[in-house]
């Protein structure tokens, strides 16, 4: 007899640590939570008495709000610390911050930080569960999970799909998590963009690198554009936004190469007219706003599962 599956993770540090079974379990839980957000009274008592701290060392609107809403809809007490108000500006180290937070007995720390691996460092020095809400250029697991949920909703499956991820792969933690996540779930991932934005060894993570966007998009079920991260670029990596838009931007014409029912995704925020034209972002195939909706459900599921929840 098969042993009953229990969600085995205390922390959500990256997609790398999750198995396909874990991912399916999270997506199922998230799907079951979606309904709560459609109720007139959008609140369940599941995490009553639990303390969630959102520790954001980098600016964020969507992710932070999404985590906060998720925590509140689960009845957890949630608190926000952002870089400008934390002791990081006074020179306190992350380990000291972790020790101080531990003294206040939180249950979950949701961290966003510009240094890759900072959630791992925090997890080593804190008793609470840690959720990575984006670390440097490493991973953004909750974004990848909501992307997978969105694809599954629209396509009914993930297995066997062709996923094209276009743009700034090297600086994108979303791309890294999605390459790992979609390949774990049996999809094929193709990436393309300026060669200066494709990291060395990305093939070893499971992606196929294409030299043209057309090649990557060809016959794709999902086309995902990434934001050009000007804040992470230390040197000029491509000539101009104008040239980027013309050779790597997702426009009506390029979309024709994909399957007719392909969906268009973007983790946001969009530089409209650069990564994606206005008409594509707002067009019929765009599921960008569904991604945002699903973000709340996925984060509710993560909070629930790492607190030891069982399948509802």
């Amino acid at each position, binding site marked *: 007899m098969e042993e009953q599956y229990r969600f085995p993770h205390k922390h959500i540090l990256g997609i*790398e640590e999750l198995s396909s079974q874990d991912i399916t379990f999270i997506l199922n839980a998230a799907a079951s939570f979606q309904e709560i957000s459609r109720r007139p009274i959008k609140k369940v008592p599941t995490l009553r008495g639990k303390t969630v701290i959102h520790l954001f060392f980098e600016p964020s609107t969507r992710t932070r709000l999404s985590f906060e809403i998720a925590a509140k809809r689960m009845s957890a007490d949630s608190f926000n610390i952002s870089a400008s108000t934390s002791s990081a500006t006074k020179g306190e*180290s*992350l*380990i000291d911050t972790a020790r101080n937070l531990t003294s206040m007995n939180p249950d979950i720390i949701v961290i966003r*930080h510009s*240094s*890759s*691996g*900072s959630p*791992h*460092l925090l997890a080593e020095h804190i008793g609470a569960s840690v959720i990575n809400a984006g*670390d*440097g*250029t*490493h*991973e953004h697991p909750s974004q990848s999970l909501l992307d997978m949920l969105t694809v599954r909703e629209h396509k009914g499956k993930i297995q066997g799909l062709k996923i094209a991820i276009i743009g700034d792969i*090297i600086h994108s*933690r979303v791309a*890294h998590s999605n390459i790992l996540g979609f390949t774990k779930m049996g999809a094929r991932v193709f990436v393309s963009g300026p060669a200066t934005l494709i*990291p*060395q*060894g*990305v*093939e*070893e*993570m499971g992606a196929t690198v294409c030299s043209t966007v057309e090649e990557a998009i060809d016959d794709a079920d999902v086309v995902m554009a990434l934001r050009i991260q000007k804040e992470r670029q*230390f*040197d000029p990596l491509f000539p101009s936004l104008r040239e980027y838009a013309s050779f790597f931007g997702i426009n009506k014409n390029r979309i024709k190469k994909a399957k007719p029912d392909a969906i268009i995704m973007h983790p946001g925020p969009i530089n409209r007219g650069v990564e994606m034209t206005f008409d594509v972002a707002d067009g019929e195939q765009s599921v960008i706003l569904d991604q945002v909706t699903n973000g709340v459900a996925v984060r509710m599921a993560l909070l629930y599962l790492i607190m030891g929840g069982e399948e509802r």
Partner: protein
Amino acid sequence: MSPTETLLLQNGRVIDPANQIDGPGDILIENGRIKTTGDAYSLQCPENGKTVDLQGKWLVPGLIDMHVHLREPGEEYKETIASGTKAAAAGGFTAVACMPNTNPVNDCQAVTALILSKAREAGFARVYPVGAISKNSAGTELAEFGELKQSGAVAVSDDGRPVANSQLMRRALEYSGNHDLLVISHSEEMSLSKNGVMNEGALATRLGLRGIPRVAEEIMIYRDLSLAQYVRRPIHIAHISTRESVALIRRAKEQGCMVTAETAPHYFSLTEKAVGQYDTKAKMNPPLRTQDDREAIFEGLKDGTIDVIATDHAPHSPREKELEFDQAANGIIGLETAVPLTMNLVRDNILSPSGMIELLSLQPARIIGVEGGSLSIGSAADITVIDPDKQFIYTKERVVSKNTNSPFLDWEFTGKAVLTIVGGKITFSEIEGIG
């Protein structure tokens, strides 16, 4: 250095590549010098002296580490000349050459003199200061090589802040000839390595860490070899870490370039995999590379392309190391693990015992032009005794250096220095009855 002892070291395995000796023998030390040498049990100890039987142990010329950071002046919370040289003695080193990236930078007589006086005061090891190539290591004007040499510097280097300007490097190589100073190159093309924190490649990509490409090292080695060859001056390349770096140096030597090169024990003992889950104890510059590079380092050590093993001993406190990986400082301590890590190569038949001593003693002495490196009669009694079979675990509590930033903590080792003698004075002993 005083007091010196009269000491008969008896029946050790004397390994002295300078004199092509590898066999059982005795050495008598008197008045800080090697008085006589002879076959095992052939020498008599004078009445006032002590006799030590070294059955099963290696008796070798004092080890010399030509690349360390002692952090004094300026960063005494990381290491002092006293604590660093004490760690050197515990690792079997009788002499070290210390890099100039202190605060202030060692670019003048005053700093060099301070280092030498602190070293004399401490008395654990001979210290050979390396002066800066450029004033304040800023990479614009040459430092005063003549004054540095007169005050005791043995070489010049802008280690840690490599010379970006090729014209300045050329001038340094040329002008060093007037003062018989060796130029040591930290070869790194900074425009390629900027903001990088580990070896570039699939692992860095997976960890989301910015890579340092191997070409950043290789391009600069090629530049410096070309310049040295062009102006016909010797050059020493510090801490090489890649396959192509070894190949470039091998080819330059074949072409008659007066180049010598060093690598560090971590480059032949570890690969980038040691970074694991963001372990800052595996963060250094140049970064740990791949197994293929490691094997090329083995070959370079074997065929003499690499002349020296030097540790790049770089102490940092938890303030610089217990941080996010990209925020943490580069560097690890190395003085106490160099012998055991090199012993691993001897056991794996990559090096002979005599080859090991060439790399750790004879060659560095010749390259920086200092006494030592041999057990010749009449030379200063700088002697290291290595017990090749001694097993130990390098625990945090055991560390002699002021800080413990080593990726080798809790490693089990076989083989270590058990007695260190500098000018006839015992600076470290784990042998019962002496020290």
